[in-house]
């Protein structure tokens, strides 16, 4: 499967011809045993129409801010190395800024994965790809890998064998935070193990490209780490790249994977994601409080999921989603 195919919205096999990500059938999980829907067909269709109308108002909203943030943020991140090395910027400050950039950088990358910055075939699609490529360098995770895995997550959300993010499942927030780190251990069968297995199963050109890019980026990054460290800048690398990367990966895993999908029991369109109230607010939780809207309509940019959620709230409630948190 080409990673760019169906990048805008839901998996192609669930899409109708409108291309809005609306499923042909109702995999909502709101079915009684035996597949009898709780809602009447007419009512479901009416809700779906309303849902689509709301989504259409937000899909394709301008997303140039992500490009500006990514390119300026990446330039700043690169500049932090020489600035910290010569002492022009205190190491603690470089560490804080780098951590923010590495963490926040994933949000524009996520938009690029869904072609929300520019659609495939459009004049500025190259910018969409540039944002994606640049923004995950601090995480030492190539865009090709991040995109293939993220789209697989959308296609098979909460499937223990096919959702690449499933190893993030944990019974509580604290255990989820610890698990984000345990899952990064070299051979514990966590996230990377899952990624490799799924890539091998996919076997597509995009999957092979993702694997190749990951090897190259990791080797380049380690080469840079080792040469800089032995060149007398070990603490600079540790505090401007290594530690921020680990903090960012845990933060991203927690807020983009664990929190919106906990407890990962339902696979249906209206059950695989939950609205939740973050104690850090919507901005610091990277916009994930309204992740349910993103899974329903990935073409809605993250900054528009909040208004879209409140417009859809009654419809989502009618669909059986617990909207009491927000």
């Amino acid at each position, binding site marked *: 499967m080409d990673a760019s195919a169906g990048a805008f919205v839901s998996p192609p096999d669930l899409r109708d011809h409108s291309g809005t990500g609306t499923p042909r059938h109702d995999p909502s999980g709101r079915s009684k045993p035996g597949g009898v829907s709780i809602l009447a067909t007419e009512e479901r269709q009416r809700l779906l129409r309303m849902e689509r109308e709301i989504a259409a108002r937000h899909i394709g909203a301008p997303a140039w801010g992500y490009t500006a943030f990514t390119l300026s943020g990446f330039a700043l991140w690169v500049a932090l190395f020489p600035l910290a090395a010569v002492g022009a910027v205190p190491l603690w400050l470089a560490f804080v800024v780098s951590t923010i950039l590495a963490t926040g950088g994933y949000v524009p990358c996520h938009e690029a994965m869904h072609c929300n910055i520019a659609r495939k075939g459009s004049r500025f699609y190259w910018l969409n790809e540039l944002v994606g490529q640049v923004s995950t360098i601090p995480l030492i995770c190539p865009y090709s890998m991040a995109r293939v895995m993220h789209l697989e997550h959308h296609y098979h959300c909460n499937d223990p064998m096919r959702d690449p993010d499933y190893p993030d499942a944990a019974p509580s927030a604290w255990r989820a935070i610890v698990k984000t780190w345990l899952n990064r251990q070299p051979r514990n069968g966590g996230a990377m193990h899952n990624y490799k297995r799924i890539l091998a199963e996919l076997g597509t050109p995009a999957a092979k490209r993702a694997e190749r890019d990951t090897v190259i980026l990791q080797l380049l990054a*380690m080469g840079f780490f080792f040469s800089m460290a032995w060149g007398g800048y070990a603490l600079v690398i540790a505090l401007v790249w290594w530690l921020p990367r680990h903090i960012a990966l845990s933060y991203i895993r927690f807020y983009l994977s664990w929190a919106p999908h906990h407890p990962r029991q339902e696979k249906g369109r209206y059950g695989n994601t939950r609205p939740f109230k973050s104690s850090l607010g919507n901005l610091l939780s990277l916009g994930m409080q309204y992740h349910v809207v993103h899974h329903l309509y990935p073409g809605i940019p993250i900054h528009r999921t909040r208004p879209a959620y409140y417009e859809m709230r009654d419809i989502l409630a009618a669909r059986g989603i617990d909207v009491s948190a927000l």
Partner: protein
Amino acid sequence: MLSVPATQQRQARQEADAIVMQQALKVIFFAMPFLFGIGFIAPVTAELMALVGVEAPLGLSRIGFGLLFGGLWGAYATIKGSWL
């Protein structure tokens, strides 16, 4: 003796090279925790010790101690598959 067309020979050579490369990469990534221990943890340890003004024990230099510490920890992580 049958002659093998040049294109097939080239393809076979490329496939053999790819296998060798894959094996080499597997070894490198398997040993990456150890390489990380001596390539990164060692100098970080030495710089940290210098920063806080701690001397290395057993008459070792700071980088010598860093290599010992990072190398052992990296070797442990390589064998066990976990830094813990």
